[in-house]
């Protein structure tokens, strides 16, 4: 059974997201990753069907994750989220979108919308 990977260094948020998404999307499995450096190990070890990643993280930035994932696993849907911040003049999310993220969400996000998006992305693949 594949799982949906939630990558965020904020443990509280990851837990809240996992709990709320689990409630809405009970048929999916959710895994959290608090250390972005472990992301690729997990992706290669677990079967991951979708990645929801935060953009601003201490170890490996969301940008890098997206870039690499899109290179190595182009079919893997990625949803980017962010609590704010920018690189250059742009919002991180805009950058993520430019790099190929399948969806972008501002925090605080609407769990309903996110769940719909997840379903949409997973059903299409």
């Amino acid at each position, binding site marked *: 059974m594949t799982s949906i990977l939630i990558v965020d260094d904020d443990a509280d948020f990851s837990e809240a*997201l996992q709990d709320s998404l689990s409630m809405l999307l009970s048929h999916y499995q959710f895994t959290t990753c608090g250390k972005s450096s472990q992301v690729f190990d997990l992706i290669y070890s677990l079967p991951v069907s979708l990645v929801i990643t935060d953009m601003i993280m201490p170890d490996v930035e969301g940008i890098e994750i997206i870039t690499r994932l899109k290179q190595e696993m182009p079919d893997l849907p990625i949803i980017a989220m962010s609590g704010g911040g920018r690189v250059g003049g742009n919002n991180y999310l805009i950058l993520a979108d430019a790099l190929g993220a399948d969806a972008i969400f501002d925090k605080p996000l609407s769990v309903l919308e996110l769940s719909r998006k997840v379903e949409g992305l997973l059903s299409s693949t």
Partner: protein
Amino acid sequence: MFIAMKNLSLRDLPIAKKFALPGIVYILGILIIASTVYAFINDQRARNVLIYDVITQKNILSHLESNLAKVNEGLNQMLFFDSREFDALLLAKAEDFQSALVEFKYISQRHAFINDESLAEEIEPVLEQMRTQLIKVVSLSFSRSLRGTKKSYQQEFILYANQIRAFTNDALYGKSELVEALLKENAHREWLFSLLFLLEVIITALLSYFMHVLVSRQLIFPINKIRLISDEVIKRYAFMDNDGLDYEVLLTRLALITSKDEVGDLARQFLVMMQTIDHGREIESEKKQAIEQLYSALKQTNEQVLKTKGELNLRNQELECIHEKLITSNKQLEQSAKLSSIGEMSAGIAHEINQPLGVMRLYTDCMLLVQEHPPKINDMLQKNLIQIERISRIINHLRLFSRDDQGEERETIAVDWLIDQSLILISPELKRHSITLAVNIQHKSQSILCNQVQLLQVLTNLLNNAKDAIIELESLAQPQGIEKQISINVLCRGGRVLIEVSDTGAGIPSSLIRKIFQPFYTTKPVGSGTGLGLSICYGIIEKHAGTIECRSRQGCGTTFSIDLPHVLALSS
């Protein structure tokens, strides 16, 4: 010593008297010589008279002797030859004897020197006897009454005659001796006189020469001193530039003085000195002129220096002003730095707040979506969501300000969105101060090409100022209160978008309106306002090819009008 004494007294005499001294010596000398000569002449004359008289006496005596001979002869003739012609002769001779004696005596009496008393005493009676006898004889002869012998008369006469002759011989001898002695004395006196005369002349000459020398020395000495001094003067002035000395004139003048003595020298030197002094004076007056010029130049320089000093003072004051302004702006910049650092942090802060917000929203969303709640709980949860939403909006709004782009990025932004954004933060403040807000947007679809952050900055600034103005008026106003309203009007006119922000605040005095867009100009105390707001707004609007104006009336309110180019909204 005597000369020294003479000198001492001489020096004090005036020139006239000094020159009189040789003259006095002359005069004295001449007087003495003259008196000597006179004395001598007198003496000689006296003696010559004496000699003459003595000689006369001698002549008388010799004449007497010859007369005696003649008488003898005559008597002989008369007596013995009875010649009558001798009567008269004898009488005459008898008279002659008398007159001779008288004369003789007279001469003797005339000269005290001659002492003929004995002679006269001795001869006189004899002569008298002889005379009387003669006369008697003659008268007798005449009357032919000669008695006695003629020889006796003759012998008597011869007796008398011999007696007389004895005396007269002695007398003659004596007289001769006297004459000789007198002559000798004459010669002696003459010799003496010559000696004295010579001596006197020599002494007078020497003395007068000496006096001349003395007196002339008295004159020469000061003249020489003057010459020395004038030499010095000439030397002193000779150090000055003597090129201008008029040598031609000087030489002509010098030629006029012909004498070669000290006075001539002095005169020449005097001329030279005069010339050099004159020349020196010329030079000095030139110098004086130069000094005066220098002085006036110096005065000018002084004035300029004072002016410059004044200018420098002004500059100083200006600099102090600027310095104060710099200090103020420094503080303001510190404040801005603080704010900008806050701005820098705001990205991070936004992120940090969004995270927990995110958690809260997730849970609240879940609660609302998944569970059935009593309506009250539902209501509360909804309200929670709204608050979360509100926080998020504020954070996002702040985030806009933290974007550190250079402001070059332009987007087409809807004006109403812009205004909504600008109101987010300030609306609570307005509500708190009971300030009403009136927004009137003519066409909701108006857009402008702008840098979002910067325009937002402008609107926020204007709204803040409007709010502050109203608060200020409120603090100054009468207790009955004032109208407190901020209105935003957006119009579209001839391809331009006009945004007006008006307030009913304290207003700006007309004298200060032109200053408000100046950097650092603020009426707020340090720390509460940077004074940069309006100047930055001005710059931003200008960069956007727009204009910003201000109209105000003190006590009534202020309106800021922004005029920007209108662009068509892209479908977005």
